[in-house]
């Protein structure tokens, strides 16, 4: 089978086929949790851990599982992994678990995870599946953090508030008050702010892509090189 290269897997996850900006998968947690940088980062890391574990397991068993039962088997695996991660977080990262508590079980419903299992992990070797899980997870985390940062900044005028909940007492000093005496902009924190923020992020990505494509055309045309697919 023709397997994608490592670089392509990484660039797909982080940019070209980013789950948050291009595939638009897993929007429910993405929109619900991103009221601050710390919340976004926490859910992003938990989702990444799930993606890596589920992609690896699905890839390892892909030759054993028959096509007729692959979806129930994937669901079983993902649900088990998420439950294990939830228990482990509750035992060893209890304070963070208390904040993200209700969103951890929701990772099961993140269609991103079964999406990667079905469209990538079940067709590729274990190392590629693992890398794909990592790249997609990090890509998703970046969008969560960017959107969280945007909403926190416009909503409260701060960045990294409550970082101590995740990184311990030392992080209490990390909170940046970028706009002092800010009265707050409630819309950014409420759900509409999530939709607007995500819209701006997607528009920003499309702008960058369009500029990139224009520049690439300008460079390649005089040299008469064939345009290669990314």
């Amino acid at each position, binding site marked *: 089978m023709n397997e994608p290269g490592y670089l392509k897997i990484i660039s797909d996850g982080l940019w070209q086929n980013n789950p948050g900006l291009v595939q638009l998968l897993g929007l429910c947690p993405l929109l619900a949790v991103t*009221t601050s940088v710390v919340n976004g980062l926490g859910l992003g890391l938990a989702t990444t851990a799930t993606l890596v574990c589920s992609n690896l397991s699905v890839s390892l*068993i892909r030759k*054993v*599982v*028959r096509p*007729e*039962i692959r979806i*129930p*088997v994937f669901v*079983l*695996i993902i*649900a*088990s*992994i998420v*439950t*294990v991660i939830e*228990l*482990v977080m*509750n*035992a*060893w990262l*209890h*304070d963070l678990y*208390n904040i993200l508590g209700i969103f951890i079980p929701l990772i099961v419903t993140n269609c991103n995870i079964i999406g990667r299992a079905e469209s990538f992990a079940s067709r590729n070797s274990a190392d590629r599946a693992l890398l794909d899980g990592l790249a997609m997870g990090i890509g998703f985390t970046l969008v969560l953090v960017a959107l969280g940062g945007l909403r926190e900044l416009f*909503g*409260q005028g701060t960045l990294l508030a*409550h970082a101590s909940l995740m990184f311990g007492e030392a992080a209490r000093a990390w909170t940046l008050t970028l706009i002092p005496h800010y009265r*707050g902009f*409630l819309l950014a*924190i*409420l759900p509409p702010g999530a939709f607007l923020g995500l819209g701006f992020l997607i528009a920003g990505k499309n702008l960058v892509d369009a500029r990139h494509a224009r520049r690439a055309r300008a460079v390649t045309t005089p040299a008469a090189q064939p345009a290669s697919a990314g």
Partner: protein
Amino acid sequence: MNYRQILITSVILLLFAVLGTAMVAGTWQGTHERIAANERATLLRKLSQLIPRDQYDNALLDDVTEVHAQSLGPDPVRVYRARHAGTPVALVMTVVATEGYSGPIHLLVGIRYDGTLAGVRVVAQHETPGLGDGIDEQHSNWIYQFDGRSLDNPDEKGWAVRKDGGSFDQLTGATISPRAVVKAVHASLLYYRAHRAQLFHAPATATTP
């Protein structure tokens, strides 16, 4: 697909179900004691913000009784009792303010033996971010104004937010959440005054989950 194929396929599915269940069961075995200890530690940390640990010497989390009162919310109220050498020092009640803007507000109300408030903390709330969520100490200092108050300070009429003629501040742009909390705290104090002896003498029935 013949019967043999169908059988093999279902056995594979069964194996994965067993495998998944075993994974979850194994992890639960390895973590459940730690999780229970974490939850007790978190609760004890919250309680000791209201009653400092050097003021009592009993096992606060095991000296619990439950009471039912309409004014303190729909659920049974857990009462943690702090004693020093057997003498009652204070208690903490898990009260629910039902009139929050977005659903119930779960409170811990700490009352010293003499009927003054040791303090109030919000355990769980879903009030509007940036407005009503100021009742939570993570977002503003609003909740600290209850420290040291009692039924005589302020008097009966004063137990309301300023907008309603009382002596408690509301929050900028949010009156409903503070109003609900003030009402629940007032109800707790009234209940305490009427039932103080019972609250401290009732045998420890409930255990901390």
